[in-house]
Every structure is written in C-alpha cells, then in structure tokens.
C-alpha cells in the first residue's frame, strides 16, 4: 500500500513532512558536496575540495536535526505501522547520508594531495567507479522520495558491481606502483579515493535497505549474496 504522510492530526502530518524535507535537504547537500569533491579532483581546483570539507559541518548538524525530529515524532505521536517504519528508516537514512558526507570529505582531502602532483592519466581510471557510486546515491535518494522498492532493490545489485570495479582498479594501480615507484603517493591516494567511493556505494545500499523496510516492512539486510 502506498505510504501517505497525511493524518487526521495535522501536527503529526507536519512533523512527518518536516523529517521528509530534512532528508531531502541533507541528501541534496551531500550530493552537491560529492560533486564538489570530484570537480576538485578532475579540475585540480582545491577551492572545490575546501568547500566540500567545510560544508560537511552542515551535514553533521542536519543528521542531528533529523534524529531530533524522529525522537520528537516518536515521543509525541507514538507512530505505529508504516509511520513507525518511515520514521525509523528516515533516521537511519539520515545517518547513512552523514557517513556519505564523511567519505566525501576524505575524497576531497585525498584530491588536494593528488593536486600537489602533476596530473596522471590514471586519474580517469576512476571514471567508472565515480559514475556508478554517484548513480547509486542518486537512485537511493530517488527511491526514498518515490518510495520505490524496485529501484531500491536494483541498488543492492549495483553494489556488487561497484565492489568489483573498486577491486579491479586497486589491482591495476598496485601494478603501476611496481612499474613507477615515483608515483606511488598519487596511486596510493587514488586507491583510497576508490575505496571511499566503494563505501559510498555501501551506504547507498544501506539507504536502499531502509527504503525497502519503510515501504514493505521487509528486512533485506544480511541476506547473503
């Protein structure tokens, strides 16, 4: 059954709308930061990286605000059934987006270090990983907004693909390190960035799991491969 935040009790509806809106805000902010960090890397512009790092504080504050909003709803309105699942999922999704924000900060910091060195062609080896991680995050936010269980389940399958891309990239970069030891610091940071992107995919998959729980009450975590 489709979830509606509309209730007889208007303040309850308003608070549910508020937590939804806060998730959208933190999601958009994390997404913008993600793009900033990637621009900083590819355009070799530290300003983008610095922005991504500075804006993370706002994401942290929003995560706490979402928790406060969720606690308020639980203590004041005692939600049950779809409302309870929605509030719990929203709080967990807020926490996962905050973790994505942390990974973005790591990417921005690593990008600044890479920018200290001459550009290397291996940078573009990251393209596929970035594209897929970004798509997974976008899809996770869309699945939450649209309560789209099918899309959420698709994100879970993409996570395996991202893990594979990360692993292949690591293997290639380790081989390059052996060929050209002077570029080890750059390759090392690229490996770390790829690892961060893989973690972003994990968090997107977590968000997808929470969406499925909110929509259908199914717990699809830890079901194995």
């Amino acid at each position: 059954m489709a979830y509606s935040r509309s209730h007889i009790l208007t303040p309850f509806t308003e608070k549910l709308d508020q937590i939804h809106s806060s998730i959208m805000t933190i999601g958009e902010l994390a997404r913008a930061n993600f793009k900033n960090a990637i621009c900083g890397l590819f355009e070799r512009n530290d300003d983008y990286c610095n922005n991504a790092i500075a804006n993370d504080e706002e994401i942290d504050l929003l995560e706490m605000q979402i928790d406060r909003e969720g606690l308020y709803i639980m203590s004041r309105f005692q939600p049950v059934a779809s409302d309870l699942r929605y509030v719990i999922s929203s709080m967990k999704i807020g926490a996962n987006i905050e973790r994505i924000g942390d990974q973005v900060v790591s990417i921005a910091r690593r990008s600044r270090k890479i920018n200290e060195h001459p550009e290397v062609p291996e940078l573009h080896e990251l393209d596929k990983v970035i594209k897929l991680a970004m798509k997974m995050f976008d899809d996770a936010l869309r699945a939450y907004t649209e309560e789209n269980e099918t899309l959420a389940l698709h994100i879970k399958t993409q996570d395996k693909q991202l893990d594979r891309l990360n692993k292949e990239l690591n293997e290639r970069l380790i081989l390059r390190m052996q060929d050209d030891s002077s570029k080890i610091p750059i390759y090392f940071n690229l490996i770390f960035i790829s690892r961060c992107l893989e973690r972003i995919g994990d968090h997107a998959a977590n968000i997808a799991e929470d969406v499925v729980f909110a929509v259908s009450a199914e717990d699809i975590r830890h079901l194995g491969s």
Partner: protein
Amino acid sequence: MNPTSINSTELLPSSSKVTPSGVTNETFIKVINFDFFYGKKQTLFNINFAIPSKHVTSFIGPSGSGKSTLLRNFNRMNELLPGVRHEGDITIEGRSIFDASIEIIALRRRIGMVFQKSNPFPRSIYENVVFPLRIMGCHKRAHLNETVERSLRSVALWDEVKDRLGENALGLSGGQMQRLCIARAIAGQPDILLMDEPCSALDPIATAKIEELIVELKKEFTIIIVTHSMQQASRVSDLTAFFNFGKLIEFDHTNRIFTAPIEKQTEDYITGRFG
C-alpha cells in the same frame, strides 16, 4: 475433527495473509460464522476466528465496530437485552456456549468480566472478593480467607488493603477499586477474563498497574480486552483483532499488527488516518 485440536490459524479471516505462526497453544475459544442482531439491525457480520488459551487478545476498532458486542457474547451478557439474536456459534473448548444443556450461570462462572467503570458492591473489601464464592454456596471461612488473600495478591492489592479488609470498598481509589473488581472476577477461578476498557477511567499509574496485572494474569487465564488505546493493546496483548463496521478485518500477532498490518483499513485506523 476435534475442535480443541484446531490450531488458531485455521480460522483466520480470509483477508489476513499472515498467520500467527508462533501461537502453539490449543484453540480455546472459537467464533464460527457469527452474526449478531439488535432487533433488525445487524451489528456483527460473519465473524470467524480462534483464540488460544493463556494469551491476551485485544479487540480494537472505532466506536460502533462491534468489539464490545462480541465480547459480551462470550458470557451471553447480550441476552439480557430485549430483541437480540445471533447466528453462527461460539465454542469454548469445543463446546457451544449456546448449547441448550449449558447453564448460563455455570457459563458465567467460567468467565469473569471487568467493566470500564469499576463497580464494587457497597460492602466490605472482603465481601466483594468472596461474593462469587458465596453465590456458589461456599461459606467455609478458611476457604473464603484463602481466596481473599490469593485473589488480592494476584491483583497486587493485598499489601495495600490487608489491614482494612472490613472497610467499605467504595473508600478505595479508582485504581484500587478496579483491581478489586479484577480480584472479584478471578475469585471464582474462571478460565476466561473479559475486560471492557478496564483502564479508560484510570490515571497513568493505575493504568500501568492494571496492565502489569494483565500480563501477570495471562499465566492463569485467557484474557480478552476491548480497548480504545492502541498503546495499551500493543503493550499488553499477544494477539490483536481489528474490527470495523461489525466485521473482523484483521487478526494477527500484536507485533505484526502494529508494525506491518496486512489490511489497509487496519493501517489507516491504527495510524490515525480515518475516524
């Protein structure tokens, strides 16, 4: 087919897709194709479900949904009203409560009832508790004393009143009076305890004590409680039945009803989306 061996899941409403699979107790009360009429007005429609023994089952639903009407059928209290009739059957341990051979007094002895408003008799605390035994013809002082202490201990009232058992019961607080009524209801050692909104007139502390009591009493009794409080139903009951417009919409484990109900009507009611 021996009705006592029927698993409660067999009589779930067809609309329910999830069976209370954890219920292992045998069916104790069974409601079969049950319709009820006040004169020409039908208030219950084809109710079918089975209640296991030593569980707490909550009946929830909006006013006029038929939950209290059904509750009052279990001890045939509705028959006190003029112009009522029923179709279908209700069985306890496989035997119809409407069977011609059933003595209505004997039936009500097996089924204690507690009402929304506590209704102690204007007599002593002691006499209130022993009242069911006296009308059963028991006058042995030792047995009566033992019953008073056991019943009052069961409702956690003994320590509060043991030194004033001769005082008028109407001098107790609202919560104490309701617990006294429960003590009176269980004094005759019934199998079933019916509770019709037992906490609606009580403050939160007295309510918490009654709820704690309900959880404790289910070790000995099969309890059915009608409540308008969703929180109360979710706190105390093992199984919950949702009624609307005289129909049983959904019957399942309480946890399931309050986290992921199957029926949209149930979802809309418990989340406050219709009324």
